[in-house]
C-alpha cells in the first residue's frame, strides 16, 4: 500500500502552514493574534500531531514493505540542467520523521506552559513550527540541493530562536555567532555539493552514489579532488553537529529558551549533521581517508566536550557540552563504519537529551522566580541543590535521563553507546580507549550535574555562605573569582532588570532582592510541563531495546539493523551481535562508568561515604598533591578549552582588522585617486586662470619664451 506515501508532503507542509499563518497574522493583526494565543498554540500542536500520526504511519509502512519511495518534480529547468525537488522515503527518513515529530509535539506542549508568561509566546510557536517544517523537509530531501536549502533554513530558524530574547546582548551575540559558524559549514557544504556535481554530474543521491562508485572502481576520478570535496562536504556536518573546530556556537546557543535547546540543540537540528553523514555513507565509504578524518573528528569532539563539561557551572551549558560530546560519539561511530550504531545512538540520545533539557527547563522555570531571571543566576547550579525534594517528578525523570546518558543498563543510551565503544575497540585501540574514557567522564559530569542540582540542600536560601560553598570543591583558584562574583551580585542587583524579559514580573524580582533572607522554595512545575517529561521517560527506558541484540545471538539481528538493512547492506558484517560477547564488553565499559559516578558521588554527593574527618583528609591531600593538575583541568574546562578566546583573537579580530584596512585602502587610495584628480583639476584651473591676466606684455613674453624653447628643442633634436 503505497497510498500513504503520496501524501507525505503533508508532514512538512502542515507545520509550515501553521508557522506562515501565525507569522502573517502576527505581523498584520498583532493585538488580536496575541489575544488568541492559546488557540494558535493548540492549532500548531494539532497540525504537528497530524504530521506525527502520518510519520508513524509511514514508519509502519516502511517496516512492513521496505520500499524506497521517491517522488520528484521539476524546479528549475533549462535546456541543459534540470533541478528537481521532491521526496525520498526510506527507513532512515521514516525513523527521523518519527523522531522529529514526537520530540516536536512534546516540546510544543511543554512550551505552552514554559513560555506562557512571555511576550513573544505566539512568535515562539511560529518559529517552532517553521523549524519543524524545515527539519522535516531536510530529512525528506532526495538530492543535494534540497538538502542544502533546508539545511540553511534550519540554520535560520536556529538563528531566530537563539536570538528569541533579542533584548539580551548575550543572546544577540550568540545568535550571530551560531549563524556565522553554521555559514562556514554551509560554505563547505556548497563547495562539496558543487564538487560532486562536477565529478558525477548529478545531484540525486542514488545516481550520484552509483556514478561515483563506478568512477572509483574504474579509477576515473582524481582521488585527491574527490577527497577534498568529501572533506568540504563534511564541513557542513562539522558545523551543524558542533564537531570539534566549529563547536563553539552550541554552548552559546543555550541563550535561547530551554524548549528550543531541547528540540533544536539537542534532539533534532544538531543531529542533522549526523543524518547527513549517514545519508552520504555510501559515498564516504569509498574514501577511506575521509572516513578516518570523520572518526577522529568524532573522537576528539567526544573527548573535548566531555572534558569541558566537567566544570561548567551553568546547567544548560553543561548539558550543551554533553550534547557535543555525544554527537562526537555518533560521528565516531559513523567514521569507523558502524552506521547502525551511530544512528541508534542518535535516536536514543535524542530522547534522553530532550528529557534532560526539558527537565532542566522545568528546574530553571521554578528556580528563576527565586534566584533571579538572569541566565547567570537561574541556570547557575551553584544556587541550586536539593531540588528533588521540591520537585520530585522533575527530579526523578532527570535522574532517569542521567542514567540513560551515562549508559547504565537497561536505559536507552546504554545499548547504543556500548555498541559504539565495542565497535571502536574493534576498529582501533586508540579510538576505543578515547571512547571508553569519555564514557567515564560522561558519567562523572552527568552525576555532578544531577547531584549539584537535585541533591543536598537548596543553596540559594543559605546565607552568603552558600555562594562560597562551591569554592571548596572547585579548588582555591576560583576563590577570588567567586568572591568578586559575589560582590558583583550585591552591587548589581538592580541592574538585573536589563537582562530580564520585558513582561516578567519585576516586582517579584526586586522584592527578592530587597528581602534576600526571606526564604522561598521552588515549586514543582505544572502538568503541561510534566506531561512531556513523563512521556519522554518511556522512550528513554524502552527505545534501547530496538537496537539491543536478540538473546539468540544471531549476527546483526537486532530490530534496528533489520529496518536499516536496505539502506546499508554491510551493517551486519560489522555489528557483533553475540550476547555473551556483548555482556563481556558491557562489563568493561560499565566499570568505567561506575567509577565515574563514584568519583562524582565523593565530590558532590549529598552525603559522605566516609566519616567527616577522613573525607576532609582525602580532600586535603587531593588538593595538596594534585592541586596544579586540578586547577589546570578546572581552568581548561571553565574557559572552554581556551578555544573561544583564540577564535576571537584570530578570526573575529582578524576579519575586523582586514575589513578596516581594506576600508582604509578604499577610502584613501582608490577614492583618493578620484578626489585627488578632482583637486588637481581644480588647482590647474585656478593656476591657468592667473595666466590669463589680460596683459599684452605677459602674452608676448610667453610667445617669445615658447619660441626659444621650441628652437632649442629643434636644434638639439637635429643634432642627435
Amino acid at each position, binding site marked *: 500500500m503505497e497510498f500513504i506515501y503520496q501524501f507525505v508532503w503533508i508532514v512538512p507542509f502542515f507545520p509550515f502552514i501553521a508557522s506562515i499563518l501565525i507569522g502573517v497574522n502576527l505581523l498584520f493583526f498583532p493585538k488580536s493574534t496575541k489575544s488568541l494565543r492559546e488557540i494558535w498554540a493548540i492549532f500548531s500542536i494539532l497540525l504537528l500531531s497530524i504530521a506525527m500520526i502520518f510519520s508513524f504511519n509511514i514508519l509502519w509502512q516502511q517496516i512492513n514493505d521496505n520500499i524506497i519511495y521517491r517522488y520528484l518534480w521539476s*524546479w528549475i529547468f533549462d*535546456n541543459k540542467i534540470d533541478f528537481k525537488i521532491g521526496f525520498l522515503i526510506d527507513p532512515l527518513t521514516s525513523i527521523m520523521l518519527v523522531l522529529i515529530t514526537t520530540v516536536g509535539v512534546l516540546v510544543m506542549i511543554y512550551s505552552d506552559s514554559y513560555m506562557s508568561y512571555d511576550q513573544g509566546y505566539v512568535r515562539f510557536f511560529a518559529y517552532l513550527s517553521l523549524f519543524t517544517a524545515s527539519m522535516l523537509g531536510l530529512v525528506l530531501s532526495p538530492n543535494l540541493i534540497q538538502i542544502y*536549502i533546508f539545511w540553511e533554513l534550519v540554520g535560520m530558524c536556529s538563528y531566530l530562536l537563539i536570538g528569541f530574547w533579542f533584548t539580551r546582548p548575550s543572546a544577540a551575540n550568540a545568535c550571530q555567532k551560531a549563524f556565522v559558524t553554521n555559514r562556514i559549514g554551509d560554505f563547505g557544504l556548497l563547495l562539496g555539493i558543487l564538487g560532486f556535481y562536477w565529478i558525477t554530474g548529478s545531484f540525486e543521491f542514488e545516481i550520484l552514489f552509483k556514478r561515483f562508485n563506478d568512477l572509483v572502481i574504474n579509477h576515473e576520478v582524481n582521488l585527491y579532488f574527490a577527497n577534498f570535496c568529501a572533506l568540504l562536504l563534511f564541513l557542513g556536518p562539522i558545523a551543524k553537529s558542533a564537531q570539534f573546530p566549529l563547536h563553539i556556537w552550541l554552548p552559546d546557543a543555550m541563550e535561547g529558551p530551554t524548549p528550543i535547546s531541547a528540540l533544536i540543540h539537542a534532539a533534532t537540528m544538531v543531529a542533522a549533521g549526523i543524518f547527513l553523514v549517514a545519508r552520504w555513507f555510501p559515498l564516504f565509504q569509498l574514501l577511506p581517508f575521509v572516513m578516518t578524518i570523520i572518526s577522529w573528528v568524532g573522537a576528539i569532539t567526544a573527548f573535548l566536550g566531555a572534558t569541558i563539561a566537567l566544570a561548567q557551572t551553568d546547567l544548560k551549558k553543561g548539558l550543551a557540552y554533553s550534547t557535543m560530546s555525544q554527537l562526537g560519539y555518533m560521528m565516531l561511530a559513523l567514521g569507523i563504519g558502524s552506521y547502525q550504531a551511530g544512528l541508534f545512538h542518535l535516536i536514543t540520545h535524542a530522547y534522553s537529551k530532550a528529557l534532560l533539557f526539558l527537565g532542566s527547563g522545568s528546574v530553571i522555570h521554578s528556580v528563576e522566580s527565586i534566584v533571579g531571571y538572569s541566565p547567570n543566576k537561574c541556570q547557575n547550579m551553584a544556587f541550586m541543590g536539593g531540588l528533588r525534594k521540591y520537585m520530585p517528578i522533575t527530579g526523578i525523570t532527570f535522574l532517569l535521563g542521567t542514567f540513560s546518558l551515562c549508559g547504565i543498563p537497561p536505559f536507552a543510551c546504554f545499548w547504543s553507546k556500548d555498541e559504539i565503544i565495542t565497535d571502536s575497540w574493534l576498529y582501533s585501540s586508540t579510538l576505543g580507549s578515547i571512547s571508553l574514557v569519555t564514557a567515564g567522564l560522561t558519567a562523572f559530569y552527568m552525576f555532578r550535574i544531577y547531584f549539584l542540582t537535585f541533591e543536598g540542600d537548596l543553596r540559594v536560601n543559605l546565607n552568603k555562605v552558600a555562594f562560597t560553598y562551591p569554592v571548596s570543591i572547585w579548588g582555591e583558584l576560583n576563590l577570588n573569582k567567586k568572591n568578586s562574583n559575589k560582590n558583583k551580585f550585591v552591587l548589581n542587583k538592580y541592574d538585573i532588570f536589563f537582562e530580564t524579559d520585558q513582561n516578567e514580573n519585576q516586582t517579584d524580582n526586586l522584592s527578592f532582592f530587597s528581602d534576600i533572607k526571606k526564604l522561598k522554595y521552588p515549586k514543582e512545575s505544572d502538568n503541561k510541563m510534566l506531561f512531556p517529561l513523563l512521556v519522554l521517560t518511556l522512550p528513554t527506558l524502552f527505545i534501547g531495546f530496538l537496537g539491543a541484540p536478540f538473546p539468540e545471538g544471531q549476527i546483526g539481528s537486532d530490530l534496528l539493523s533489520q529496518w536499516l538493512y536496505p539502506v546499508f547492506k554491510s551493517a551486519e558484517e560489522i555489528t557483533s551481535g553475540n550476547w555473551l560477547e556483548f555482556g563481556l564488553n558491557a562489563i568493561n565499559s560499565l566499570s568505567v562508568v561506575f567509577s565515574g559516578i563514584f568519583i562524582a558521588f565523593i565530590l558532590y554527593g549529598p552525603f559522605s561515604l566516609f566519616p567527616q574527618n577522613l573525607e576532609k583528609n582525602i580532600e586535603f591531600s587531593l588538593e595538596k598533591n594534585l592541586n596544579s593538575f586540578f586547577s589546570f583541568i578546572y581552568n581548561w574546562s571553565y574557559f572552554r578549552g581556551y578555544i573561544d578566546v583564540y577564535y576571537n583573537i584570530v578570526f573575529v579580530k582578524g576579519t575586523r582588522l582586514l575589513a578596516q584596512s581594506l576600508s582604509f585602502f578604499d577610502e584613501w587610495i582608490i577614492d583618493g585617486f578620484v578626489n585627488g584628480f578632482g583637486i588637481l583639476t581644480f588647482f590647474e584651473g585656478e593656476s591657468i586662470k592667473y595666466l590669463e591676466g589680460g596683459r599684452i606684455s605677459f602674452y608676448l613674453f610667453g610667445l617669445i619664451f615658447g619660441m626659444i624653447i621650441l628652437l632649442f628643442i629643434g636644434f638639439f633634436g637635429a643634432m642627435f
Partner: protein
Amino acid sequence: MSNFPWLTTIVLLPVFAGCVIPFFPNKGNNLIRWYTLGVCLLEFLLITYVFCYYFKFDDPIIQLKEDYNWIDFLDFHWRLGIDGLSIGLILLTGFITTLATLAAWPVTRNPRLFYFLMLAMYSGQVGLFASQDILLFFFMWELELIPVYLLLCIWGGKRRLYATTKFILYTAGGSIFILMGALTMGFYGSNQLTLDFQNLSNKSYPLELEIILYLGFFIAYAVKLPIFPLHTWLPDTHGEAHYSTCMLLAGILLKMGGYGLIRINMELLPHAHSIFAPWIVAVGAIQIVYAALISFSQRNLKRRIAYSSISHMGFVLIGIGSMTDVGLNGAILQMVSHGLIGAALFFLAGITYDRTRTLFLDQMGGTAIYMPKIFTMFSSFSMASLALPGMSGFVAEFLVFLGIVVSNKYSFNFKILVTIIEAIGIILTPIYLLSMLRQMFYGYKFSKFTTFSNSNMDAGPREIFILVCLIFPIVGIGLYPNSVLSLWNSKVSFILSKFIV
C-alpha cells in the same frame, strides 16, 4: 491593434504625463502624489498587459519592433523592441518605480519637480531597456543622468553636493566611451552609419578593434554596475540620496550596467568577450569579497548596504563571465533579485532613519522593542540578501555558482580558486548583515528612543504595503524560479549560441 506602437506609448507616457504636473493648481501635495502614483501604476499595468498579450516568450528575436526615422542625416532612428533580456528589467523598472513613488510620500519640498523627475526617470529607464539603436541607447543613458543628478542635489543629505558632483563626473565620464564606441561601430566597414543592434551584430571587426571597443564600453558599464575599482561613487551617492531615489538607484540604475554588458559587450563583441571573460570572472570574485569586507567596517547604515550592493554585483559579473546557460541565467536573475532586495533594504534604512534620526550603527541599538514590524521586515530582507534558500537571491547565486562550475572554458585550478573566493563571500555576507541587525535592533539601550516608546514608532500601513509588495516577488522567485527564468531562457541560449563557434 497589433500595429499599435505599444512600446513608444510605454516609453513616452510617463514623461508626457509628467509634463502636465506644472499646470496643476498649487493646492497641497496630495493631488500631485496621487496623480504620479496613478500614472506609474497605469504605466506598470500597461507594461504587464502588453507583455502578456503581445510578447511570445519562447522566441529569442526582438519583438514589438518599432522603427521611426528621427534624424535622417545621422540615420538616427527611434528604434524600439524588446526581447527576453529586457523584458525582465522593464518589468522590474515598472514595479520598483511605482513603489518608489509611493515611498516618496513624505517628500514635501518642491513636490512638483520631484514627481516630474521621478516620471522622467521612469521614461528614461524603460527607454534604455527598450531601445534597439545604439545611439538611442546612449541618448537614454544620458537622459537618465539628469533626473538622478537633480534628485540627488536637491533632496539629498548633508554632503549631497560632493556626492552629486562625483556621481555626474563618474557617469558622464564613463558614457563618453559609449558614444565613441557607438560611433566607431556605426562607421566601421561602410560609409553609411548603421546603428541598429541587429545590423551591428552581423558586422565583424578585426580583433584589435573589437578589444578596444570592448574595453571602452566596459569602462562605461564598470562605472554604472559598478565594478571594482570604479565603485567609489556609489556609497557616496547612496549615502546621501533620499531613500526613494536610493530605491531607483539600487533597484534599476545599477542594472543598466549589467544590461549593457550583456546587450552590447556580449552580443555585439563576442570575440573580445571570450578573451576578457576570465578577467571579468576574476574581478567579480575579488569584488564580492572586497566589498563584503569593506561593508563590514562601515559605520553608516546606508553605506553598509551600498557596499553590500557592490558585493552582490560581483555575482552578476561572474555569471556574465562564466559563458554558460546557467551562469548567464543566474546573472540576469541576480540583477532582478538584487533590484528587489536592494530597493527594499534602502527603503528600510530610510524609514529607520526617519525614526531614529541617525544613520550610525553604533548610535542605534535596542530599537526592536519600539518598532517590531520594521525589525521583522529588516530581518526578512537581510535574510533574502544573504541568499537564504526560498528567496530569490539564493537561486541566483546558486545558478551563478553552478555556471562557473559547469563552464568548459576555464581550467580546473581557475574554477576551484574562483569558486572558493566566491564562497568566502557567502560567509562574509551574513557577518556584515547580521552584525548590522544586531547593532540596530538587538540589545537594550537607554537612549533617546525610550522617550518615544509611548507614541507609535512602528511602520505604518503605507510602508508595510511597500515591503509586502517587495517580498512577494522575492519569495515567489525563490520558490519557483521557473516563473521568471522562462522569460529570458531562450534569449540566453541565443546569445550563447554565438560563442559555440
